[in-house]
């Protein structure tokens, strides 16, 4: 059952995503993409548990590299998006 429940969340999130992103103006498409890079760094929260598990060295290494990479996405993505959005000024 839990799989079906996850599938339900997935379906709702996809439709919500379409509705929200349709409204993003073309002017902001580059920040949208770099922001999406940051959000996809969410993998980090899945990787943390493996990185902190000392019982299995291989999984710990894989998890830690994953934490490292996902953090690059999170920090790099949000920072560069902020840098760009700060430049969009009104008249």
């Amino acid at each position: 059952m839990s799989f079906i429940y996850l599938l339900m969340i997935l379906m709702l999130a996809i439709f919500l995503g379409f509705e929200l992103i349709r409204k993003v103006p073309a002017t902001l498409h580059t920040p949208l993409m770099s922001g999406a890079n940051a959000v996809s760094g969410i993998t980090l929260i899945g990787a943390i548990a493996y990185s902190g598990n000392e019982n299995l060295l291989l999984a710990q290494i894989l998890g830690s590299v994953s934490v490292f990479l996902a953090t690059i996405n999170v920090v790099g993505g949000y920072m560069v998006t902020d840098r760009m959005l700060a430049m969009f000024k009104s008249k």
Partner: protein
Amino acid sequence: MLNTELIINAVYVLSAALFILGLKLLSHPSTARRGNKLSATGMLVAICVTLIDQNILAYEWIIVAIVAGSAVGAFIAKKVQLTEMPEMVSLLNGVGGLASLLVALAMLETDTAIDSYLVIIVLLAIGIGGITFSGSVIAWAKLSGKVAKLISSGSTVFSGQAFVNAFIVIAIFVLGALVVIYPQTANSTVYVYSFVALCIVLGVMLVIPIGGADMPVVISLLNSYSGLAACAAGMALNNNLLIVAGALVGASGIILTSVMCKAMNRSLINVLFSGFQTVKATEIKIEGEVKPLAADDAYYVLEAAQSVVVIPGYGMAVAQAQHAMKELQVLLEENGAEVVYGIHPVAGRMPGHMNVLLAEADVPYELLLEMDEVNARMANFDVAIVIGANDVVNPAAREIKGSPIYGMPIINADLAKNVFILKRGMASGFAGIENPLFFKDNARMIFGDAKDTINAIIRQFAG
């Protein structure tokens, strides 16, 4: 035990809400920055609360990885030139894909007895992650031109490529099936790592045949994949927030991909696989004469103009002409003219690339108009200045039935009263197609570096 899990999941709900609100605020430039900050806050609380997870026995490795990742991320974000945003987004797509691949592998290594449906999802996360990773690296290489000798920025096709690809796909499915059927045998590790290797090879094979002009589509699509990889990892790990965030990213990439494809009047299938078709040499000769104009003479026309539309392309970024253009815009406005910018969806090398470069040059976002808006008013513009754009203003898309770009929506610069084309020489654009715009009666070519040309006009205004 139950309590920490409950707290973690409750905070995840909050994080998901912040991600969604952040995206909602991205619907207008005036609120977008706040939206990005909300989204970042959502991420921060999600990461912090995950650290109380009972499965975490030691924090040393986590802390080292987070600190190192933050340092690298902050360094890149500060150093990157905005002209290089396509390269950066491409690299981050790849990094995201690899992160999802590794976390899925870690799960396979840790959990010894998992249901076969879960194994399928884990393999899906590995597959999408692997393709995203290697595909993005190739896209990055093509965009940056740094490994030009190894990977051409154009399309790379060799004989039997379709056959090789089909073989790889079949092998991936066979290996995947073996992993699912025999998860606990000694061979399964071999199967898993062969599966990983083949997915990475497939990513390379899928992107090498795609030409440089189609990179905006490829980056958007890989952006979507990086989200879907996170999504699949979330399904496997039973993690709601991963699913929601991954789905949002996936949806975003898919929408951008479709916007890009529509703007090129091509289907996604055509973009992904057209490298395999032999290009028909179109023998359409355009009659007429190109009329060059000196920058000094362009000044007299601009000085008298009431309304001017600027149509930028990637050439503007290459010449770094956006700051000079902003200077000229101010002079024209002081002279009583209205200046707007008409931006084609595929101008530049990624969606919205031109807008960011112009925003960097302090051009107010109200002046950045979309294609349909400027086209509706085109006949009323006294002057259209085309800077480093070519295919997106090519009237062959409207006029010449046999042209490869026939049917593509373009900015109708040729319908303005005067058209100035700032260009280095007569070379054709990415698509390699002759441009009849250059031969029109109302068109004048101003040859030379775009920045130097604009500066020459600025000097005339000052003098």
